[in-house]
């Protein structure tokens, strides 16, 4: 046994050294990519890498327990191209595009289950150079044409139905606000950004079958600090950035179908087989997104390639009133099982988060797998069971994979996520109101700064002099405020603030507003429903849970645990608050006829006569003389005698 273990350790050592080498190189690539980052930019760089980490869960597999690879893993999550097969591919020049698919499943604290699909297409091409790209293989042509026609540098679009319940579910891998969100960085060669943006939204509206054409200047803003490019590139001039949300957008099947059509295998094979709308829309939360950005092709970053990342997050409600074990299976969730990977995919994997239960006491996963992987996800070290769909053995003898998990839920008590936020409208009546944004920092001893972005439609007229930021009962002065007042019917308010959140505190941002009276054609068909105000966006570098873990409950080598590791000490996080529904003063549209009649009557009868009475002077009229008298008078006049 000892000898066996020794040989394994040797093998391990070789693999580890190889890994360290690759990772170090890829890290260098990242650094060259985002070298010129400003302070805020830095924040964003971490987003990129961390989101990459969150999304990709680097495919480092060991045929051993994870404890032995801990040291390497800490660095291994830096860059997403660290999988060995990618490196192999980049050395082979022939196929310049690459497709990967994966599914992460996480049983949530509340007893619900979270499934996150990610599909990534990488293509080494340049849409911007003069020659037209006409041959498409894996990359969808519709999006390629959009990129080249509108000189898009980066495009992020998400459609979400529901609100992510941070207090019960923890943090999502990719946050998104309820409704539709679109943000685009244009190339600096674009001269008429607003015009291009308008066209782009209309085209995207067609592609995704969504009401994105309702994006116009009244709901578009140019955030100065909150949304930085996630791909490579050195332009951070926010004139080329446009950000818009449509909080009212309803997401349903008609948006899912065009989204699935962008996949190389469509919904015919691979993980996309599971995406059946009758199950996906029978859930607590549904979010689908498309992210396009330029990334480095290889570790030297000599050439760039375009990355199309399609993500779909869904949370299934598995509430059963009785206690005991919850059961979940692929078939139960999606009413399908998996039979094959997408033949075009270079990697196709399913990850199951088993962190909460390393000993296998609460979890039962079947079929069992011996592949384990570990990754830093949102500042926390997570462990995953991995199923590789490209291996035939995964499907077993029945030629179909139906994962099954049984676990105990600890329902009831809520989580205390390090950073979360909520927002509501205070006050009553239809004249004024107050928007309250609460930001919770639940870290026991560290304070951290957050960037708050608020975009409020013009019909809520913000009184910016009433803006207050308080934490722990004291005034908290934001170190950076960018405020752009609204113009009626032209553009919304934009408020960006950099606020320091003290440890273990609630920071409350309040601002009063007045509700505008709209013109009667400006009301929606259902004015009494209310008007939506989009979510505020909170971007922050949050101290990681691992760094917080000082009393090292986890068994780890002593040499790795003295100084808090810098990479782990904080991670980027974006939090969206709930949208607001605000009632504006609304006339009674059902009675225009009555109102017109009444007004006209009042004006015609009441006002007219009253005006007459007030302005005329009255005198008693002489009764008109009779005919004989008049004739007599004429005669008298001719005679020159005074009349009668």
């Amino acid at each position, binding site marked *: 046994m000892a000898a066996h273990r020794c040989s394994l350790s040797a093998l391990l050592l070789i693999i580890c050294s190889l890994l360290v080498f690759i990772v170090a190189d890829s890290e260098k690539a990242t650094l060259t990519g985002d070298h010129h980052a400003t302070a805020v930019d830095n924040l964003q760089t971490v987003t990129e890498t961390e989101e990459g980490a969150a999304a990709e869960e680097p495919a480092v597999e060991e045929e051993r327990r994870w404890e032995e690879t801990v040291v390497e893993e800490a660095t291994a999550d830096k860059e997403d191209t660290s999988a060995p097969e990618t490196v192999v591919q980049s050395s082979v020049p022939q196929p310049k595009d690459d497709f990967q698919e994966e599914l992460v499943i996480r049983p949530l604290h509340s007893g619900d289950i979270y499934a996150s699909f990610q599909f990534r297409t990488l293509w080494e091409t340049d849409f911007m150079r003069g020659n037209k790209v006409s041959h498409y293989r894996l990359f969808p042509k519709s999006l390629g044409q959009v990129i080249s026609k509108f000189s898009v540098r980066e495009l992020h679009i998400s459609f979400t*139905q*529901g*609100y992510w*319940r941070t*207090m*019960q579910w923890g943090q999502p891998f990719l946050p998104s606000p*309820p*409704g539709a969100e679109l943000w685009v960085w244009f190339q600096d060669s674009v001269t008429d950004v607003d015009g291009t943006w308008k066209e782009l939204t209309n085209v995207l509206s067609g592609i995704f079958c969504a009401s994105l054409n309702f994006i116009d200047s009244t709901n578009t803003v140019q955030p100065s600090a909150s949304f930085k490019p996630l791909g490579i590139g050195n332009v951070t001039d926010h004139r080329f950035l446009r950000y818009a949300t449509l*909080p009212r957008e309803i997401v349903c099947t008609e948006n899912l179908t065009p989204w699935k059509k962008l996949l190389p295998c469509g919904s015919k094979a691979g993980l996309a087989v599971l995406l059946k709308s009758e199950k996906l*829309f*029978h*859930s*607590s*939360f*549904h979010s689908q997104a498309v992210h396009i950005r330029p990334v480095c092709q290889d570790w030297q970053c000599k050439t760039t390639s375009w990355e199309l990342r399609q993500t779909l997050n869904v949370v299934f*409600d598995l*509430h059963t*009133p009785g206690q005991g074990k919850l059961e979940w299976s692929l078939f139960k969730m999606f009413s399908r099982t998996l039979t094959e990977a997408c033949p075009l995919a270079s990697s196709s994997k399913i990850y199951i988060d088993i962190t909460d239960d390393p000993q296998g006491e609460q979890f039962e996963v079947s079929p069992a797998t011996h592949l384990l992987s570990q990754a830093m996800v949102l500042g926390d070290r997570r462990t995953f069971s991995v199923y590789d769909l490209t291996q035939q053995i995964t499907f077993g003898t029945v030629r179909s994979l139906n994962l099954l998990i049984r676990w105990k839920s600890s*329902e*009831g*008590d*809520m989580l205390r996520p390090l950073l979360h936020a*909520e927002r*509501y*409208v*205070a*006050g*009553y*009546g*239809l004249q004024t109101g*107050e928007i*309250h944004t609460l930001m919770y920092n639940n870290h026991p001893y560290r304070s951290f700064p957050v960037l708050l972005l608020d975009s409020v439609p013009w019909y809520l007229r913000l009184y910016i002099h009433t803006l207050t930021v308080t934490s722990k009962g004291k005034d908290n002065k934001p170190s950076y405020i960018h405020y752009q007042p609204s113009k009626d019917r032209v553009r919304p308010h934009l408020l960006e603030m950099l606020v320091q959140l003290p440890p273990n505190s609630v920071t409350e941002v309040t601002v009063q507003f007045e509700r505008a009276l709209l013109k009667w054609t400006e009301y929606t068909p*259902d*004015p*009494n*429903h*209310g008007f*939506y105000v989009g979510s505020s966006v909170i971007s922050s570098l949050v101290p990681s849970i691992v760094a917080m873990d000082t009393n090292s409950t986890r068994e780890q080598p002593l040499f790795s645990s003295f100084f808090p590791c810098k990479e782990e000490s904080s991670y980027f996080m974006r939090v969206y608050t*709930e*949208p*607001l*529904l*605000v*009632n504006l003063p*609304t006339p*009674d549209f*059902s009675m225009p006829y009555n109102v017109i009649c009444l007004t006209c009557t009042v004006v015609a*009868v009441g006002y*007219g*006569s*009253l005006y*007459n*009475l007030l302005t*005329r002077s*009255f005198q*008693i009229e002489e009764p008109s003389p009779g005919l004989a008298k008049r004739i007599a008078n004429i005669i008298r006049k001719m005679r020159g005698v005074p009349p009668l």
Partner: protein
Amino acid sequence: MGLLSDPNRRRALISLLTRLNAPICVVCYMAGVAWFMGLAFEPFTLRTYMSENAMGSTMVEERFPAGERALGTGREFSAHKKKAGGMPVDWLVKTMQSRGLEVFTQRFSRRLPFPDEDKERYMVKGTNVYGILRAPRAPRTEALVLSAPCSPGDDNNQAVGVLLGLAQYFRNQVFWAKDIIFLVNEHDLIGMQAWLEGYHHTNTTGMDWSPLQGRGGSIQAALSLELSSDVVTSLDLVLEGLNGQLPNLDLANLFYAFCQKIGVLCTTQGKLQRNDWDSVSGYSHAVQTMMLMVMKQASGRPWGDHGLFLRYHIEAATIKGINSFRQYKTDATTIGRLLEGMYRKLNNLLERLHQSYFFYLMPSLSHFVSIGYYMPAFGLLALILLLRALDLWIQLATPPTFNLNPPPSQMSSPGVLSVLTPLVISHLTGVALYTLPIHFQEIAVEHFPVSETEAVVLTAIAVYTAGLALPHNTHRGLFVPPFNGWKVLKLVAVLYLAVLLGCTALINFSLGFILALTLVPVAAFVTPDVPKALSAFIMVILSPACTLLFSVFLFQELQEMPVSFLDGWMLYLSVISQGILDHALYGSLVYPLVALLVYPCWLLFWNILFWK
């Protein structure tokens, strides 16, 4: 209007109005009262109908099965309530959590301005517990509220049981589009006030509460459930809210429609509706129901926990289970099904309830009188004031000859002064009536053998009575009042009263109408020339305080619980203290309205009577 531009005809019209002023006024008064009584006559009223399409055409199924289990939960709640000696917070939190809700608590405390002897409370401390059922794929923008009070003693345990049972059942349904908030509030209205203020982050009454942690967006509708027995014979719908506000009529229609569908006896004001409208007893039954509604609305107090929602433009009603000695019984499952149906329909709402009426009176649950029908009754009464004002104006303008260009300048300067003094003094009396009772309670308690509450009420009555003695002596000695000085004062007072009552009736018809009913005759016929003793007696009888006293007796009579004079008097005192408390705790406007405006206005007429 051509009539007015012609001086001859105008003169004729004016002389007609002046000559026949008194008879016209009497006719108007009779007509106003008759109109009002006619409102309860069924052929003159409209049948209720559902205006909101989102709730009308879509039928829903009610399948709530677990009435017995809900009652069991209610018994468990009652046991824990007894053990905890109040709100069993921990148990409720645990129970709601096990039903899959997000649970939050809110602590609040309030010191009443003086002890409330009816409910035996002074320092109030409590906790509200609420659980939010999050709707799947909804972005937390809209919510519905179902609340049940945690009352002292054995009351309302079943309501909490049904609430928890519904929470459990609702959690397993998939069709919710709005978050549903299940609220158990302690200390009835005070807890509800704390919760609503916390939810909307306002503070209108100076209460201490801890901020809320979880919210569900803008609340669209709310129901409050009161249920104290395992089976009920009928369900009673309570609509009257703070300051006489009413929820949208569609909420009442919804309740009525489901009672009809499920076959539950439903009442409003505790009165079943009857079909024999053409018989005398049928008509008097409808009058009773409507009068009860008028009395309740005029009181301006919330008649159930729902009453405070209305301030926030949230449509709300209270459903009370009534268990009387009838044969026909309804069990908890049926009540659960009824509520389920109502919530499913409210869940279907696309817009806030706005289609139907906000101003109405209900002679029965299936019939209503809209604002367009009942306003003429008040208009006829207000017309008397305008006619009197016209008469006075003409008398003032044309003592010697007919002259169109109004007021002769020589009488204006002393006239203004002679009007101003009584105006100011009577309003100062009003301010004293408003402020003294609460501020002087300590002094009163020190010097007299009374409790704080009695001190407040008795001080109020004392100030009120003292006001009668004060103003009519004040103008004496200041200057020589001009001839006809009282006419100027009466003109001002009559117009003042007309505006005051008009505004009141627009906001709270019942209050405006009841005040008009008693004040208008006083205003119309009081002059210094009438026999003093008799007129003084009549005026005191028709003063606001006596109106309140009569209202108390009438209300008891209408509820078929007549009281002896002594009990009535005690009730009257407690009503005054409740009115003052309602103002301090929930911001009810009736007490300040009466003290600061109506009573001074009445004092002006009192002043005219004793004009020298």
